[in-house]
């Protein structure tokens, strides 16, 4: 190869490699810096919950509570369930495990929680509704998931939940499960956890 040709080939190679390298750096940046906030944004827009703003899905005001008309012809079974994330040393269970109600009927139940550890723990509950088609029809005026819950060592409390399922709920839905995941909000404690989170089903 003549030296001229070689020279221009090397120049061309440098250019191509530079472009490809920029692509690599760009894609790493996309994965590392852009994807996490972008993903959070998409979740916010589509209404997925985020622990930092609390589990506010389906929150309505007292005034709206009785707006839905009661449909006496239908009976819906609601099941209550919970999961404890990463060894939260609390004893928690729904005081009613399953109930039957009409769409539009306002109901109130409570979850019982007791801190079994010797430390004060602040926890946050994140709700989830199954099947997901029912999520937008499951409305709450009062829920322990709206705020962080603090329990001193040995302290216990009943945490109320007041809800209504509006009458627009699709006809084919007969059973709805409301499930909460309780999480310790102290990050450092979580890091030390070596055990796999266990599923505590209350059903």
């Amino acid at each position, binding site marked *: *190869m003549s030296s001229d*040709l070689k020279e221009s*080939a090397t120049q*061309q*190679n440098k250019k*191509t*490699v530079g472009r*490809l*390298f920029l*692509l*690599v*750096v*760009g*894609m*790493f940046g*996309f*994965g*590392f810096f852009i*994807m*996490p906030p972008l*993903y*959070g944004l998409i*979740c916010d827009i*589509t209404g997925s919950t*985020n*622990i*930092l703003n609390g589990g506010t899905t389906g929150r309505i005001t007292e005034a709206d509570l009785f707006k839905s008309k009661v449909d006496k012809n239908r009976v819906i079974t609601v099941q209550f369930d919970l999961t404890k*994330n*990463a060894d939260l040393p609390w004893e928690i269970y729904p005081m009613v495990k399953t109930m039957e109600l009409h769409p539009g009927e306002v109901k109130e139940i409570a979850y019982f929680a007791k801190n079994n550890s010797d430390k004060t723990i602040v926890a*946050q509950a*994140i709700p989830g509704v199954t099947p*997901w088609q029912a999520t937008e029809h499951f409305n709450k005026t009062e829920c322990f998931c709206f705020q962080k819950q603090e329990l001193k060592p040995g302290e216990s409390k009943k945490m109320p939940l007041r809800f209504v399922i509006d009458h627009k709920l699709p006809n084919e839905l007969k059973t709805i499960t409301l499930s909460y*995941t309780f*999480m*310790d*909000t102290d*990050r*450092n404690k*979580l*890091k030390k*956890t*070596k*055990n*796999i*989170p266990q599923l505590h089903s209350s059903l």
Partner: protein
Amino acid sequence: MSAVTHEEHHHDEPPKGFKRWLYSTNHKDIGTMYLVFALVMLFLGGAMAMLIRAELYMPGLQILDPDLYNNLVTDHALIMVFGVVMPAAAGMANWMIPMMIGAPDMALPRMNNMSFWLLPAAAVLLVSSLLVQFIPGTGTPVNTGWTLYPPLSVQVGLGMDLLIFTVHLLGISSIMASINIVTTILNMRAPGMKMMDMPLFVWAWFFTGLLLVIIMPVLAGGVTMLLFDRHFGTSFFDAAGGGDPVLFQHLFWFFGHPEVYVLLLPSIGVLGLVIPTFSRKPLFGYKPLVYFMGVLFVLGLIVWAHHQYTIGMSLGATMYFMIGTIMISIPIGLMIFNFIFTMWRGSMTFETPMLFAIAIILMFSFAGVTGVMLAVVPADLQYHDTYFVVAHFHYALIPGAVFGLYAGVFYWLPKWTGHMYDEKLGKIFFWWTTLAFNMTFFPQHFSGLAGMPRRIVDYNIQFIEFNQISSIGAFAFGLSHLLFLYIIIKTVKGGEKAPAKPWDGAQIGTPGLEWTLPSPPPFHSFTTPPKLK
């Protein structure tokens, strides 16, 4: 197309001793090292598969502890993907692409050396991530599966950190190799060779290289976040700290789905040479095949979430990913038709590479059919994480990727070594390995549809028969590779001398320049650019 070559004869002798390999900047030597590395890793990953199948011969726990079993499942996948298929394909690219396009060497020979030598280091790290669990106090083994999903991967022991660094090294290695190959293809072609004159294998690697450059950094970013979550108190993937474990799944599969095409495309490239060669007919629809690869490249990048139908995506997103995934069967189906039309009315002979090529067309199409089943959301919700998925992706990857590489090995062994391989042994190897492969993975469709979950050491006794057939098939499949090794060693040591053009239809099969060189080619080839006629 033919070329006039003027070989320069000064310093044509390779350096002696270990320096030849350690300091090598020669594309043929580096190609050989890649191929040998892949072969060694094939036996390591294969041995893990044998252990897994031995454990699954009977329900209950026999020889493996559940965590160790899951660690072996994880490492089997990582070794086969990153240690076998990708290095073997890169080895073939190193050997063949400069010779096909008439380049003296790769564009960046020193980077080429480095991208290979990162691999053994990564292999050592990977093996130590498996062994470190035997030291007390290092925590749970990496029992996550190759997808490394958090929250489990945040909680397992030291092995995970070693594995994260392994993935970093492998990523850097394959990014450098890809940059090198793409640059070579773009800039180093012999004067007069246009992009549309290149053999299909070169085109396939062009798209593979671009894919790797795009997806590998995203995986590297994902596992780096995992490392931060484990040690630096961030919570990218921790719901209790405001993160979301599903984010990792998106990052992983943004890499993981195109990765399937990274494994597949080089083999499609080999098919595009082998089938015309032994049909003695030019490739049917060369240009459309290149376009189909381009379509595959684009579609492959935008359908990743079909691996995650069960995470609870919105209906719209699920529909989009389902339709996109089903659309992929169009370019792939058309490629298969192109290969069949190439064979149509050709004067076919059935040497070992051709046998593998035909087997790929049959079995890979079968994987395509189960793939469409899995793409359909309501069906996938049933099949998700069962052995049906295991059967599907082994049918896609063993014929689609591994058999394509075998076809390539047999097709080019005469060129690489200067000796013809033993055709009789080659055919025995083909029938043995193909039958054993089908015996291993075909029954897994049934056990999967009946509900046997994957990645679990134990199973219900109703699946005993299917699993025993599977295990016996797997042992036969594993053993057949000893014959493969024997054939390769025998060919390297000696055998009938191979001419420059060992196959009748070689020049019909590929428009490249590799057959203008003697077999084996000189240490330095095309130091003066060939003149195309």
